[in-house]
């Protein structure tokens, strides 16, 4: 059921990207899709009544990990993937917004249908 809500968030972002005419709204749709995908990856690795995958003094017994920690910790692998994805989304947002600003400087509008009709 939670997966269905996360998928609905992704579909709302896809609708915003495909249907809207304003360029900045399209960028916002891409951003919503990225949030939904990162959320989905972390939801896959969750364990009910789990602990964060960080070892502190309570998880160590004489230099070895306790059984409790190994049995209840959350999956660290999707968190590594999502950490990478979040930083990359910031870089690609900067690139897309710079293209939008250049198009506005040249054509004077954010509307993509107007850009098709104007001649250079």
């Amino acid at each position, binding site marked *: 059921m939670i997966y269905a809500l996360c998928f609905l968030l992704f579909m709302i972002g896809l609708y915003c990207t495909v249907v809207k005419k304003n360029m900045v709204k399209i960028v916002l749709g891409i951003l919503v899709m990225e949030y939904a995908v990162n959320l989905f990856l972390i939801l896959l690795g969750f364990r009910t009544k789990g602990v964060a995958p960080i070892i502190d003094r309570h998880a160590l017994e004489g230099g070895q990990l306790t059984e409790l920690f190994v049995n209840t910790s959350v999956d660290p692998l999707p968190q590594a993937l999502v*950490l990478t994805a979040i*930083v990359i989304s*910031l870089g690609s947002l900067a690139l897309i917004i710079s293209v939008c600003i250049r198009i506005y400087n*040249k054509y004077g509008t954010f509307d993509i249908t107007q850009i098709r009709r104007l001649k250079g």
Partner: protein
Amino acid sequence: MKGMTVIVKTISSWVKILIFIFGIYIILFGHLSPGGGFPGGVILASSFILLMLAFSRQEAEKYFPLSVASKFDCIGALLFILLALMGLGFGINAFFWNFLQQEYLAAHETVLKLISAGSIPLYNIFIGLKVCASLFLVIVVLSMTRPELPSEQEQHLEE
């Protein structure tokens, strides 16, 4: 662009130092507590961006000139790759081999101490440096070019 009001300027001149120290803490302790190179670098960049938003762009460029920022960007990436290539000479000859941990630190008992985990804190520092310089460069350059209409651009060019 001009700065903001007196209250904002006074508070931000104190708070930017706190944000800077917090960013350095998140980078350095990345192998012991949540954080690491990427969020720490972004926090460092946001301390300079606070300076740019509250005062003016020239004030931020006095502290961190753009040429120095682009050099730090390249130096951070180069040092990252250099440390990875040094792993080819030790132990099993693998790219990104954690040679500091396996050769030198494995004998000592360094669990949960600051100097542990070999080259992981060094990677964090280089990545933090690179991300800070990159994001500061991007936002300063974005604030130099405004989205203007083509007619306004003609006026600027004729001056």
